[in-house]
């Protein structure tokens, strides 16, 4: 039942993250030393200010197509895909990094697009479910999901397929147990796990 999934982007920048962590904790320690009255004044000011939308220029490549746009700085990669680029194949199942439905590839590694701000992928190559078929020829994993009936309602399916491709690439598809473990960040409420595992086995052994 472990639902933790490390965002590869974060993992790569481990050093940076640690430094960032030390800096922020330092700031928090300082904050703790500030008298309560000042803190409440700060809170009042903060409550009073209504922050307005800010946009920033964003250049991003999705499925090998370049997009240049002014993007709301709050926009996640998931919402950018679904609401701004009309790529609705990537699904929103929780918006909190708890279900895996929004899994896409960023520079070839699986990433939860709901936990990724669109600004973070500037200059990177994003691949979504719409981008893995080749000239109308389904990706072997897409074909395997059809052959093994690896879905029912189909809503978690794009995330499952993106994860499944990465699962094999990561070398974690050597047994049913291993596949199940490394696919456990992608929930399926229909419970189509039999077919999902069989699909991955089929592609991994072909």
């Amino acid at each position, binding site marked *: 039942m472990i639902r933790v999934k490390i965002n590869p982007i974060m993992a790569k920048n481990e050093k940076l993250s640690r430094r960032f962590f030390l800096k922020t904790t330092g700031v928090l320690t300082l904050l703790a030393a500030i008298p309560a009255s000042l803190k409440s004044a700060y809170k009042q000011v903060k409550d009073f200010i209504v922050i307005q*939308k800010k946009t920033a220029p964003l250049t991003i490549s999705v499925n090998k197509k370049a997009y240049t746009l002014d993007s709301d700085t709050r926009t996640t990669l998931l919402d950018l895909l679904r609401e701004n680029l009309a790529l609705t194949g990537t699904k929103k199942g929780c918006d909190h990094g708890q279900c895996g439905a929004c899994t896409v590839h960023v520079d070839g590694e699986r990433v939860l697009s709901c936990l990724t701000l669109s600004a973070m992928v500037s200059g990177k190559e994003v691949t979504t479910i719409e981008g893995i078929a080749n000239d109308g020829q389904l990706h072997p994993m897409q074909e395997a999901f059809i052959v093994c009936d690896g879905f029912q*309602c189909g809503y978690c399916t794009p995330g499952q397929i993106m994860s499944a491709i990465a699962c094999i690439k990561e070398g974690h598809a050597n047994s049913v147990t291993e596949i199940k473990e490394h696919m456990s960040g992608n929930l399926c409420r229909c*419970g189509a796990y039999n077919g999902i595992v069989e699909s991955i086995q089929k592609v991994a052994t072909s």
Partner: protein
Amino acid sequence: MRFFDKQNKVIPEGRVEAVDKVTGGGKYAAEYKVDNLCYGILVDSTIPSGSIKNIDLTKAQQVKGVVGFVTHLQKPNVPGFATEDLIKQSRFGLPIFHTDKIYFKGQPIALVIAETLEDATYAATLIEVEYNTASFQVDFDAVHHNIPLQEAGRERGQIDSWRNAPYVIEEEYNIKSEVHNPMEMHATIAEWTGERHLKLYDKTQGVNNVQQVIAPLFNLEKENLEVVSEFVGGGFGSGLRVWPHVLATVMAAKQVSRPVKLMLTRPQMFTGTGYRPASWQKIKLGADASGKFLGIHHQAKNETSLYERFSDQITRVTRLIYNFDNLKTEDALVPLNLSAATWMRGPGDCTGDFAIECAIDELSYKLKMDPVDLRSKNIAATHHPENKLPWSSNYLLECISIGAKHIGWDNRSPMPNSMKDGDWQIGYGMAVGMWNAGRNKTSAAIKMLADGRIIVQTAMTDIGTGTGTGMKNIAHETTGIPQDKITVELGNSSLPPAPSQGGSTGMSSVSGAIVEASNALKLKLAEYAALINIDFRNLSPDAILLSGKGISRKENPNETVTYADLWEQNKLDNVVVEATSGPGEERKKYAFCSSAAHFCQVRVNVKTGKVKIEKLVCIADGGKIVNEKAAANQMSGAAVGGIGMALMEEKLIDAKIGGLIGDDLAGYHFPVNADAPMIDVHFIGKPDPYINPTGAKGLGEVGIIGTAAAIANAIYHATGKRLRNLPITPDTIVG
């Protein structure tokens, strides 16, 4: 309107929508492109009880991009909600935006509409609400004892007659509330296409139901309200109601005169779209020394909301599976400051069956009888135990014997706590489930084009069960037209009407209509063929063969009138036939059921209490299996749901704050891939002779009814510890 854009060439008899699902092409409710669309976000009550004193929108209004608001103080006119009486008559449930009263924490009290999702989400956080708070109660366990039971159905025999039964089990069972949590969060796009015309893209299990609920609220002609629900990301019962957010979205679109899209957040899915209510049960079960059941007394209570009463009918299943000459059932509802409960997969029966199947298991050990034998001895195999009608078909006994073989039941050591492997205790358990096999009136149409392709249509939704695929398979089987020449359209209220997909009635209901429509097509084409060749006159559907090219007679299959000739000589456009099919006289002569036997092998860790499901076997009698792959998938998926019910699912409620905690997918656990073994599913596969023209009985529910009991019984066999409350978590095993 097409259910899919791309043909499944990988497996022609496979899922019609498969390519759209694996390429991300299928459009779910929130994914349609609608011009001038804006976004709605609901704001929820932060208190569980009281009333709204004031809603301050001033800060939220300062967010550029905010287009409007809906609250109980500023809203468009909803004629069907104009008075308290009308609200009551509508039976809608929560009178959203038409009351200042707070019934539960999480109740939607305001809606922000903005140009973008980000603007709406942010503005929603700036709305400030003042409340008058009142006392509340959310603790089912604390208060259900105070609610008196009432008789639920007629008493059978005499409760006192078996008072002195030599073998009696009398125990209580508690099950926590579960939440459907389909992977797609409920969403609606509402677009007023004219003053009196409305279009809804809605996640629902029944487009006609949405039409019937929403149209009268706005005095709309039913046909002027189009509801689209082509791809549905799971339901499990959550889509059988029209929930407050749907009405909220329609009101919002009216308020701002623009189309509005609203998708619930995952936490809102815990309070906005129902749940399986928490329950308490008490079972008293008696038997004689031979193991014959003498009687059962089943009492049950379930939680419900304060604004509508929902009975889960937990004791219904008690009257279905076994012969009890003496039977008494009682139930009660426990109103709490919670949102409305609703049907969840295997509603009522899943809960009631858990208690019965655990009690029977317990009785078997008291009797020193094999649990399989005790059940087989008492199952009502030939007649419905309540109305005494003969079963149209009932292969539950066969399911049990096949399941026992598959799990290796006879290899187990019968004594509890007798099989070990290091720190692991090994146990076997089994249970059965049954569901009344229903069927509802359904219409379907077939449109044939000049090139011989057909389009099969119904308004019924496909929530992942394979309805569309089944429709294609049946149309192919009945007409003979090749699978790749058949297209399916569904999930749209402008198609021939159909009931909601739920209660395992989908395939049973629609299959009859497809067969009837297929036969109507054959007859119609034969009529045209008879104008060319007189031999085609007065044929029965069975005597007519269709192919990819033309029509022929069974008597002389080589003599074909081609569609090209038919069309040319009769100057045809498209040929359209429509048929309606539903239950009839057979319902007075027979009783109908689907059933399943569940067998399970578990390992329980002595030190940590961790439960590993090693094997799960499900053998089902669902009549004719229309598409084996999709059916097996549905059954194994239901078994996964049963694992959740048994071991992890619990809607956590904090009695002090009066609301939910852990209301997301990190806090609410349902099985991930690693929690489930590869599940072994088999079917009896014998068509039911009377239920409908195909003999398919329906499967959605029996896959989960009994699974949790089989697991609990296996845990008892492994550990010797009888656990009667769900979920069974490691702490309850080692504690």
